[in-house]
């Protein structure tokens, strides 16, 4: 439906996307006792870490191979080996996830090959699982890096099977980068309500949900246990949330014959209905639990109350494709008009399906310009959109990554019946908060003559 526009310009103004390695780092943080390791220069890691810390308000154990000029030219295999050794000494992680950066990719290092050699040589590394994903900064954004990392994990850890040996109570839940910890939690709750047990990958809902824990391990504070990941081969089904998870789901099917279905969105009535119907089929439950039914009835009512504030509203949205699609279609189904859509990566079929005329592959500069031209009434993007919101005098609904000028970003839930309801309220209340007091001039009328105004006199007693 929508056509993809590549703006003809050399200058990018106010970046929209976060880098691909950062997406990979987040995936690795969704594995228990893990440390993400950037194969690049120290700065690649420092910027990403500050970005993550600003968003999650958590200490993030992100490490670097600290490439210098010499190692960059001569090759970084030694740096990787040294980094793994030091990390093991320091924190004894179960899992180290390596993400390449533009620097090492430009040089063209054969990291998988080098890594194989290192791991063969270093038997002492055996109790740490090391996974590598190629995530050059120059290709795609956070969502792409996220997808590459999940694909790398399932490729490395899900065993090849020749026949099905399914645990019919277990389903894989592959979570895309657009899901917050609270989103994942809501999906887990929904799946469990049908008597099914989700194997969540990656599970940032237990590591980056913002909790105080008793230990300081220097690793991720929760997440999918590494030992559980091979069990994905025994799941009855894979629920892939977000188009970006199709690749990983396909890999699991190819390796272990686990069928999958991609849910391009789980925000809004129809998409959640589709998920629920699938869960009904998987569990054989014709009559879902009362809480699920009540949540749907409440979403209907929320939609009725919210539609006065969504109908005809011109919305500008800038986000990674999956998030843009989920929120955009949910709002379009409520009668809102998507007048501006800006996204970060062309590697997705969702652009065609966006309910708008065009999708710009661009930045927040394009976003601001286009939103102003199209007369948008509300902006949806991450915190950096605040400058555009300020200049255009428009409300900003913060969604995506990073959100650094509001706390609790990890607790915002926009999935499932409950999260969809919250999203409609959030949107409608932002619209209502823009209180415009009409004036005669709005309608082209002359002001009321001043002669009629009261001229206050000091009170007499």
């Amino acid at each position, binding site marked *: 439906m929508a056509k993809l526009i590549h703006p003809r310009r050399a200058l990018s103004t106010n970046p929209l996307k976060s880098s691909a390695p950062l997406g990979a780092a987040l995936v690795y943080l969704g594995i228990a006792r893990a440390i993400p390791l950037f194969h690049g220069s120290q700065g690649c890691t420092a910027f990403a870490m500050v970005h993550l810390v600003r968003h999650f308000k958590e200490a993030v154990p992100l490490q670097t191979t600290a490439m210098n000029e010499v190692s960059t030219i001569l090759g970084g295999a030694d740096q990787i080996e040294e980094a793994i050794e030091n990390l093991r000494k320091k924190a004894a992680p179960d899992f180290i996830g390596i993400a390449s950066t533009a620097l090492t990719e430009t040089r063209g290092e054969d990291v998988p090959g080098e890594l194989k050699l290192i791991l063969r040589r270093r038997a002492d590394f055996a109790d740490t699982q090391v996974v590598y994903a190629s995530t050059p900064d120059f290709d795609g954004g956070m969502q792409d890096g996220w997808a590459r990392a999940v694909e790398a994990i399932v490729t490395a850890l899900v065993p090849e099977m020749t026949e*099905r*040996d*399914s*645990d*019919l*109570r277990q389903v894989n839940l592959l979570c895309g980068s657009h899901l917050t910890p609270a989103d994942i939690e809501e999906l887990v709750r929904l799946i469990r309500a049908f*008597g099914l047990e989700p194997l969540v990958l990656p599970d940032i809902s237990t590591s980056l949900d913002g909790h105080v824990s008793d230990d300081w391990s220097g690793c991720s504070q929760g997440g999918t246990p590494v030992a559980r990941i091979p069990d994905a081969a025994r799941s*009855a*089904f894979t629920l892939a949330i977000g188009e970006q998870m199709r690749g990983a789901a*396909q890999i699991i099917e190819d390796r272990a014959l686990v*069928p999958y*279905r*991609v*849910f*391009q*969105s789980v925000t809004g009535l*129809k998409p959640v*209905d589709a998920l*629920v*119907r*699938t869960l*009904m*089929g*998987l*569990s*054989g*439950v*014709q*009559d*879902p639990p009362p809480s699920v*039914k009540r949540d*749907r009835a409440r979403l209907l009512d929320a*939609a*009725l109350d919210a539609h006065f504030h969504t*109908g*005809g509203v011109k919305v500008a949205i800038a986000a990674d494709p999956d998030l843009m699609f989920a929120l955009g*279609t949910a709002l*379009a*189904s409520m*009668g809102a008009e998507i007048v501006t859509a800006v996204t970060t990566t062309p590697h997705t079929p969702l652009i065609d399906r966006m309910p708008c005329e065009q999708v710009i592959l661009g930045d927040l500069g394009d976003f601001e310009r286009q939103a102003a031209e199209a007369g948008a009434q509300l902006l949806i993007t991450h915190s950096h959109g605040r400058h555009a919101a300020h200049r255009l005098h428009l409300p900003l609904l913060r969604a995506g990554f990073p959100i650094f000028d509001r706390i609790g970003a990890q607790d915002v839930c926009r999935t499932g019946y409950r999260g969809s309801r919250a999203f409609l309220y959030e949107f409608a209340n932002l619209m209502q908060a823009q209180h415009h*007091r*009409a*004036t*005669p001039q*709005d*309608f*082209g*009328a*002359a*002001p*009321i003559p001043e*002669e*009629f*105004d*009261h001229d*206050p006199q*000091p*009170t*007499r*007693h």
Partner: protein
Amino acid sequence: MSDALKSKIADVFDEPGCDHNVNKEERQRKKGCAKPLTPGAAAGGCAFDGAKIALQPIVDVAHLVHAPLACEGNGWDNRGAASSGSERYRTGFTTDLTELDIVMGHGERKLYRALREVIEAEQPPAVFVYATCVPALIGDDIHAVCKAATQTFGTPCIPVNAPGFVGSKNLGNKLAGEAMLDHVIGTVEPAETTPYDINIVGDYNLSGELWQVKPLLDRLGIRILGSLAADARYKQVAMMHRAKVTMMVCSKALINVARKLEERYGIPYFEGSFYGISDTSEALRTMCRMLVERGADAALLDRCEALIAEEEAAIWAQLEPFRPRVAGRRVLLYTGGHKSWSVVAALQELGMEVIGTSVRKATEEDKGRVVEIMGDDKHMFDNMAPKDMYRLLKEAGADLLMSGGRSQFVALKAKMPWVDVNQEKHEPYAGYMGMVDLLRAIDRAVNNPMWEELRSPAPWDTPLEQGAILPAHRGACPVTGVPAAATARPVTYAPGEAAGDLPPHAATVMPNGAASLAEAPPSSVTPSFPTSPTLSPAALSALPSSTTDFEDC
């Protein structure tokens, strides 16, 4: 009830300007039109509510409600009358009478002190003091207090004597008008008068509706001198006696004011509406004709006709794009008064079908107009119980309900689009340009894709085609931590009737797995189900497959 108030009510009820009243028998006319309310079946506001609604849009006045908290505390800040000047009218002032005040008879003293405080704090051009049931019952003399306060503080304190129990909202409107006639109108002289000065009575400038019409008046050189009470300043009420013509907007609510302005000051009045295109034109025509009769330049008539022709052509051109989006849609109108007919013509013109309109609070004239516009009276109805309306909306297959806030949820819960056309609405629909806003609202309501989604069946309304046998629960319940019993058995789920025999969810949540279809009558288990907990390849292929994605989300 004091004798003064009693005779005031009798006077208000005996309204020669009201055809309804004039047509009554002599005896009945004296009784007035106070319909006794039915306990247990009454809806709508009281006289105080009516008085407050009529006067609150006077923007620079301090509106002080002499009452226990409910009258103001539950009722303030609930209407969208817009102001282009002072925002004082939005502030809720009340004496907040307590038990002690009432028992000890401190009401009058408290009112006097409250008047002093509000005048010192706000320095308003005037304070309107609203009487309510409790002070009226215990005999507070607000007239005397207001008189004393006016003398002492030098700021007019105007008593508005319409305690709730004397009658309906409509009566309250009229009593408020009487208070203006008795105490305000004629107290201030304008700096200059022109032959183009008018009064507008009975409009409240909700969401700025007056301003949608004002550009038309501006272009004709007509000045709104007096206003009761759309975007009005106190002085504009006090100067009403100097206008040349009065336009009475909201049917008969303030007819006593219009008639007495004519009786006392010789200002003729006409009844008009700015809802709908032809009505706006008609109102402008009548206004100009009457101004010319009272001394305005006769060229005004030509200018008026030219303006009407230009505006009508322009507005139809603007409305035309909506035709394909709204044509054929069936509308149920549930409002009252002049609104029962004033937008019907325009909706019909754009191809919409008005399947019914209520004629509550409508006069005989209003009803006549309905018949005139809709061809017969079959589409007219009076009050309708919410239950009946719900049924009508579901059965008669209306596409849209246009009404006030009270019936909003009848429509919404029937999953029926709804457009607010009463006083709580947030958008102005007056004059020519207001029709575009109204059509936009209708378009937005009926064409929202949400309705189709909302009306579609829930996932569980369609029976499953495939059963499943799940292994017993293992491990601990993630919520309670209660471990699954070692005796847990596999659970079989079956679609269709089998699901009816046993609530499947009950089976899934019980950690001990006691509830299992294995214990249910064998007849409920269809033989075609796989008997092994492991799915056969055939059963797997029947699961939602990875070759199909959800295209419906």
